[in-house]
């Protein structure tokens, strides 16, 4: 085991330390905080490259485990690992992260909370890298939660906007719903296999011994334990990766600054769910994978539909991200780790590119996000336009661009999936829609005449520099510090796919730990070429449809109804309102929770508290009763008795008044009565 494995923990810890230091900095120390963040990220990137080289030369899994805390005579252990899967992610996260950090120095240059922004961003990078190298589901979960925290903090970065604060809360809570499933899955796995270490010299929970033990147990609903645990862990992935039905937070998360959307809500964090499933893949048996595939396919189609009718440049990309994450899950479900991960990596590059491009557009148009109010930007921002076009073609899956190879691998696997052809059709329709909505967006933003909305006649205070009044000026190209990352990413979006073509499946072999070899015969696999042809046709059809509706007749007015709206107003409105998912949740789940809360408070007040008060009243009642008895019965009776006695007393006093003549009078009367009585009695 080489030193890089032993010191692999430095990769996440360095950005975390940078975050810690940034947290203590004062707001004016901008340059220092950005330097710290970028510097630590650069070192992590170099270390990640070294780790990657190590994984290339030793593809076997290398681990380092440590004791964390003790309970009774057992230890909870944590650890980190290096294998091709982790190495690929490490390089991707540090590289994309580094580019986005650099871009942010330009994008956030005027923000008063610049220092804090880099603090949160570094903390995020550290936690995300922790997720990647974790060799323990517990450590992964811990970093996973911290990633969720940073996502929360960065979505709500402009916390003075109520929408941002609400979106941040929604993101945290929605993902936490999934995380609770993950937590239960985790403790269940811990109970069953006695460890949460993934690999531990044969006794880890992902190793043969534990897996076969898990497969032997049957639990509720006749499920095998490993299916149940796999699905619970998948719940976490559903939340984090914005899969149906927990996708609602991701579009709202676009309230955060655009670099955040690029890094966290497109390239890395949301992909962590996919990475999690890939990491615990040995645990996922066929039944669990079936669920994964269906959830992924449904999400891919569902989100692509909604993206068609959105007008916010970032929301379109957000739904596109949800949809692409669905493809990754589908890839994992039907094809295996390599298929899903390949799309994850290519998507990270081209979606980060698209978001940064969108950020550049927003920056150039003074905070405008509505695509209807843009138009003609290719003349003003040529570099951004070129880069954005490359990203769009990659996302659409235009032949030879990165997305083409990775998406095709997914569709190919879905086509060959033995259980059902459904996911394949979902994916294919989704691909058509993807090409369509991206074309629509590009035409709205970059082509046609420049459209200035009437609302902008009023100066709008921008969220990023509230003090500064925005002026209506022509859009301008962004500074070099922002366009350079765009160009670099564009190169990757165009060419990255060539590391995983059927002829030279280097990426797939690397993940499998085998040497790759070039073999042009890879294309001759039955059905492969035909499928590629079909998927290319689908892409062309989508782009053509977009051109027909939005491109061939330039959009002149910002207020004109959408071309699709004119064709089919009903469905368009439903899609524009995100198929009312948020409203349905509001009316059901959230209302139920509110009711439960009110009921709990009522229970407390009137039942639990009421009973106590009732007892108190009863006791007090007895007290009053006692008082009454005392006062009127006992005391009253006593008083009455006393009164009687004193009355008698007074009577006797009156008799015994000491006058002898009275006594004699009484005696005389008594004698007379006695005499009469005796005489009477004697006679009778």
């Amino acid at each position, binding site marked *: 085991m080489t030193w890089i494995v032993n010191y692999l923990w430095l990769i996440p810890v360095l950005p975390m330390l940078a975050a810690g230091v940034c*947290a203590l900095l004062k707001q004016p120390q901008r340059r220092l905080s950005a330097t710290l963040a970028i510097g630590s990220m650069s070192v992590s990137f170099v270390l990640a490259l070294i780790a990657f080289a190590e994984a290339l030369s030793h593809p076997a899994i290398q681990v380092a485990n440590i*004791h*964390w*805390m*003790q*309970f*009774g*005579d*057992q230890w*909870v252990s944590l650890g980190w690992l290096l294998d091709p899967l982790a190495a690929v992610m490490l390089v991707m996260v540090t590289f994309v992260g580094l580019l986005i950090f650099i871009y942010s120095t330009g994008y956030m240059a005027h923000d008063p909370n610049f220092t804090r922004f880099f603090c949160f961003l570094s903390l995020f990078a550290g936690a995300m890298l922790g997720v990647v190298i974790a060799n323990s589901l*517990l450590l992964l*979960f*811990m*970093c996973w*939660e*911290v990633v969720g*925290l940073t996502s*929360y903090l960065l979505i*709500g970065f402009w*916390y*003075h*906007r*109520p929408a*941002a*604060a*609400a979106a*941040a*809360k929604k993101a*945290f*809570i929605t993902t*936490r*719903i999934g995380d*609770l499933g993950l*937590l*239960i899955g985790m*403790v*269940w796995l*811990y*109970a069953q296999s*006695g460890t949460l270490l993934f690999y531990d010299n044969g006794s880890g929970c992902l190793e043969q011994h534990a897996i076969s033990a898990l497969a032997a147990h049957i639990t509720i609903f006749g499920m095998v334990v490993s299916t149940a645990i796999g699905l619970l862990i998948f719940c976490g992935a559903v939340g984090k990766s914005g899969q149906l039905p927990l996708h609602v937070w991701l579009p709202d998360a676009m309230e955060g600054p655009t670099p955040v959307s690029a890094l966290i809500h497109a390239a890395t964090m949301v992909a962590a769910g996919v990475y999690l499933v890939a990491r615990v893949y040995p645990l996922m048996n066929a039944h669990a994978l079936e669920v994964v595939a269906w959830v992924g396919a449904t999400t891919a189609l569902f989100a692509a539909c909604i993206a068609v009718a959105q007008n916010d440049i970032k929301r379109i990309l957000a739904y596109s991200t949800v949809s692409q994450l669905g493809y990754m899950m589908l890839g994992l479900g039907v094809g295996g780790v390599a298929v899903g991960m390949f799309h994850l990596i290519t998507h990270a590059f081209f979606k980060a590119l698209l978001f940064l491009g969108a950020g550049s557009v927003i920056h150039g148009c003074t905070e405008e996000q509505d695509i209807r109010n843009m138009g003609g930007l290719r003349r003003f921002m040529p570099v951004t336009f070129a880069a954005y076009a490359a990203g769009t073609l990659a996302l659409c899956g235009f032949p030879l661009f990165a997305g083409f190879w990775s998406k095709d691998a997914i569709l190919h696997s879905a086509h060959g999936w033995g259980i059902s052809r459904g996911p394949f059709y979902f994916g294919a329709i989704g691909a058509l829609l993807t090409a369509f909505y991206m074309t629509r967006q590009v035409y709205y933003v970059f082509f046609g005449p420049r459209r200035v909305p009437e609302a902008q006649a009023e100066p709008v205070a921008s969220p990023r520099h509230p003090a500064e009044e925005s002026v209506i000026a022509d859009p301008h190209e962004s500074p070099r510090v922002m366009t350079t990352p765009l160009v670099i990413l564009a190169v990757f979006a165009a060419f990255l796919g060539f590391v995983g073509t059927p002829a030279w499946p280097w990426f797939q072999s690397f993940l499998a730990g085998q040497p790759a070899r070039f073999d042009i015969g890879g294309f001759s696999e039955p059905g492969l070429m035909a499928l590629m042809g079909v998927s290319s046709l689908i892409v062309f059809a989508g782009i053509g449809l977009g051109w027909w509706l939005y491109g061939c007749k330039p959009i002149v007015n910002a207020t004109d109804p959408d071309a699709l709206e004119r064709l089919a107003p009903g469905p368009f409105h439903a899609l524009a309102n995100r198929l009312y998912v948020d409203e349905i949740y509001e009316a059901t789940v959230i209302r139920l*929770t*509110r009711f*439960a*809360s*009110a*009921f*709990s*408070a009522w*229970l*407390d007040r009137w*039942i*639990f*508290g009421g*009973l*106590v008060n009732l007892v*108190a009243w009863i006791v007090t009642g007895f007290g009053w009763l006692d008082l009454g008895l005392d006062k009127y019965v006992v005391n009253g009776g006593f008083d009455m008795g006393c009164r009687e006695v004193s009355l008698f007393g007074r009577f006797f006093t009156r008799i015994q008044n000491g006058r002898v003549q009275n006594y004699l009078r009484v005696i005389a009367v008594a004698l007379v009565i006695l005499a009469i009585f005796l005489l009477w009695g004697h006679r009778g």
Partner: protein
Amino acid sequence: MITALTLLPLVGGLFILGLCRTRDSARLAAVTFAFLSLVLAVLLWFGLNPETPGMQFEELHAWAPSLGIAYHVGVDGLGVLMLVLSALVVMMSLAASWANEKQGPVYFGLVLLLEAGLFGTFTALNFVHWFIYWELSLIPAFFLVRLWGGPGRARAATQFFLYTMVGSVGLLLAFLALYLATGKFDLVDLTQLAQANQIVPSLANLHLRISAECLGQWLFWAAFLGFAVKTPVVPFHTWLPATYAEAPSETTMLLTGAMSKMGIYGFLRILLPIFPQQMQHARTPLLWLAVATIVLPAFAAWVQKDLKRTFAYSSINHLGYCILGVCAAAQFMGPQAELGTEKAAALTGVMLQVFSHALTAAAIFWFIALLGRRTGGQRGVDDFGGLRKVIPVFSGLMGIAIFASLGLPGLNGFPGEFLIFKGAFPLAPWATSLAVLGLLMTAIFLLTVIQKVFSGPVNPRWEAMADLTTTEQLAVLPAIALMFVLGLYPQVITGMVHGTILQWIGGLH
């Protein structure tokens, strides 16, 4: 050593009540005595050998031998954890009171008396003087609430006092019956009898009309009542929100940080060791009560309008996890090694949770006290808004405390909750799965508090609010730092209690 520890705050309290006439001298004396107590408690902590089973630093003096009463004190991992915890919370509370002009010399004296009561309760090993401390600690607490509380203080203090007293009556009756049956008041002796299965047979000596088993069950519930009110367990908790809200926030720190732990301590020191069979027999209702204690307050917290009531409910919810851990650990008696592991996990989690909740809850009420002093007592959830902009340091630090309360990994709340769930899930899967709802609702209401208080546009009333002063920052920072330490390296605590845990597991056969 232990006697000295208990005497120190007692002497300090009497000294302040008797001699200190000014607020300045009283608070200085109080902080000095509390600090010395903390030092002593920490010395005990480091002096304790975690590998040795049984009580350490024991002192045993005859008192009334004919009645089975002795002065018997000692600590194990649990005891020493509680001592450090109470000393720490008292220290925090005094620091919070430092600048509160309303609280005069008597206040500081009463706080120290309360600390003495806590120390006594956590070290006494003979029921009689344990019970004396248990009751004595109530008296200063009553006056702290009654004299310095909010507008509803009279009602709240009376309810608090009477409710707890009623619970204690059950406890007293149970132990009198045990004494009559076994002739012992000593908790260690009773534990040994219980583990040798001799308590129930000896109950037959009482010649009552009901069977010994049935009587044992009744005695368990009677004792349970005492701890259930103190902790509290739903539905015996209704005194708590009112008391926590009406008490001055500095006192609430003591109530939630230290006094509520007396209940958990009772569960661990008395119910679990002395009534194991009875507890196992009552497992189903106990688990339901535990789940109710976790879930219902978490729901109720969301609709509270008063910050202190919100966090009061949050406090019940957090202690509910402890109850769940204890009840799950009591569920299975048997020598199986795997179950032993799970029980050890649950009980270790309870220990961590007890400590971490004390730290977090005390910190949160401290922040509320600081907030209250800046706003003249405003503490409605809806009274604020946008405070992050006005008082960023305060908001950041309180945010850390809130996330610790939420159980964010890396902060102190997580390791305990994880271990409780890890241990309780295999022992009581359904109850534990339901309890997860509590985790969700905790996130919901805590984030709602953050959203309403710290985010959004600035409420114009508070635009001029002052951020934490340097002194306040320095006072709060150790507590925040401790949150990180315990979150990242919980072995600080688990390493100290594992011997005690193993002994309990051994005894729970």
